[in-house]
């Protein structure tokens, strides 16, 4: 190719294109410079003020200590049970509103605490507080899977229900024919 052509009148379109690309790039750089937070990068690839903002947010997950302040009977039930390691929110949801209601009820006894709903069967349920008797909850931990330690109580559902002579093999609440949630008696 004749290199002099690049700077000739025949390449006006390329000069227009180059101008647009450079102008676009410069515009993008300007926008970026305006959007970078002032305290970004001081302590790492984040805003320094983000630490305080995150720390000030209320905790999403409630600890068992909060639940067991009121539900002392559950604490007793679970204390000797294999389910002592299972946290409340695993089977009952986050319960943020429930705890807020409970705190309000402690202050104003006339305040009613709504009853927990039955689990909707969706593992990412957004229900604040729920109770569940659905086998899916139990089987999320107790289905026999590869590599599970021998000491962990895992079952093949069909075999287990047949062995134990379950009445309603297809039923959702079949586990509760023999077991309790807080103290399953395994």
């Amino acid at each position, binding site marked *: *190719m*004749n290199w002099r*052509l*690049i700077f*000739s*009148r*025949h*390449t*006006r*379109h*390329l000069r*227009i*294109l180059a101008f*647009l*690309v450079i102008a676009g790039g410069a515009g993008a750089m300007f926008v*970026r410079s305006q*959007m*970078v*937070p002032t305290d*970004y*990068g001081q302590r790492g*690839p984040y805003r320094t003020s983000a630490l305080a903002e995150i720390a000030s947010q209320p905790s999403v997950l409630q600890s068992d200590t909060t639940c067991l302040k009121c539900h002392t009977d559950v604490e007793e039930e679970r204390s000797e049970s*294999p389910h*002592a*390691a*299972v946290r409340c929110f*695993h089977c009952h949801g986050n319960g943020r509103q429930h705890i807020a209601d409970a705190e309000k009820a402690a202050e104003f006894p006339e305040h009613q605490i709504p009853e927990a709903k039955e689990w909707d069967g969706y*593992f*990412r349920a957004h229900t604040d507080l729920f109770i569940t008797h659905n086998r899916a909850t139990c089987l*999320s*931990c107790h*289905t026999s*899977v*590869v*590599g*599970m*330690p021998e*000491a*962990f109580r*895992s079952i093949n559902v069909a075999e287990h229900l047949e062995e134990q002579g379950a009445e309603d093999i297809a039923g959702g609440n079949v586990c509760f024919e023999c077991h309790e949630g807080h103290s399953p008696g395994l």
Partner: protein
Amino acid sequence: MDTSSFVFPNDPHVPWSIIIVLYPYITGLVAGAFVVSALYHVFHQDVLKPVARLALVTALCFCAFATLPLLLHLHHPERAFNIMITPSATSAMSGFGIIYNLYMLLLVVEVWLVFRPDIVALAQTTRGWTGTVYRLLSLGDREISRESRAVDEWLIRVLAIAGIPAACVLHGCVGFLFGAVKANPWWSTALMPIIFLASAVVSGIAALIALYLFFCWRRQVTPDADCIRAMSRYLWVSLTIAVSLEMLELVHMAYESGAEWHALSALLTDRLAVSYGIVQVLIGSVCPFVLLLLAIQSRLNPRLTAALSATASALVLVQVFAMRWNVVVGGQMLSKSFRGFVDYPLHMGGREGLIVAAVILVLPFIALIYVARLLPLWESVGAHTAGTRQFQTVPIPISGIIDASISVTNHQRTMLDEEQPADPDAFDYGAVVRNEHV
């Protein structure tokens, strides 16, 4: 080991859904289509001329939607820009964002240069909104001289050369994103970017064969048998390489039999038994391998070649999708403690359901059909006519200022000679181009 404090499985759900499966799938189609375009522009594989423009435009249309699955997956899509506003040198996703933008720019410029003679001609002959679009795309400069085209052709070749490593890095980066997750043995392998790249080339060529045959069917023209055969040959070679790499990785894992193998082998024979063993390997790899071997036989009837290639391409596209599925979803089904699997229920509705995924996958094709209406993807109708593969260049004067050169067949040349008005200034180049539109 005290296991009393474990709750199984410890990964409650699959966060990267079918939407994220589409992300490497669409990106792969971009890289593969660009490779075909580069084979013509850089390596002068003239047999691919009928699909050279289609390949470039396909790459552009798919590239435009490559990041859409990621944006839809994010709960805050606007945060996607943070990876470029405040990029981190140690973030692979940030690297992808920068490479993606540069590659998109390169594609836009290359497509513009390739179609510039047509854009300029159409800008002068088309009225209304479409004409305004052409005039905007011409950037106000309507010179199509031999000199300007010489520079353009040189620049197209430079961009095509630069685009090959860019396409490789773009899709290699997608594979790297998975390969760098060291907590997941199904992903964490240095082969992952190479496997992704090889399957990207496979999917791109397969998509082009399918699209070329589809457009030929819509335009009621006979597909170029040599072109189909050549693409099938490239597809067969790249499929062989891609599947070999995939199998090598698996055999390597099995032979090593590391701590994670018992979980991986259970994953493959249980949760992925159908999508891996049957769909990816048997239907998607073995069947197209045999079909393509038959399709590339030169003594085969062209119609049969096209039918075999189309079937094989469709199966290969399914194979690559299954491969992406098995990597993305399969890798998350594996509990990170290697104790148990997670279920992935694929819902029809919802933000990340099957319907949304189908819409995302269809969008690039809709864009392609619109671009095909706007720009002439087929340089010459004669190129697709059986028995007329000889091209010759005929200079056509347009409005006194354009000295464009377009390739036409002998048959077309005769037509032009007969139909061209006495006044060369009045010749409607745009009409010739539009006749070739889809």
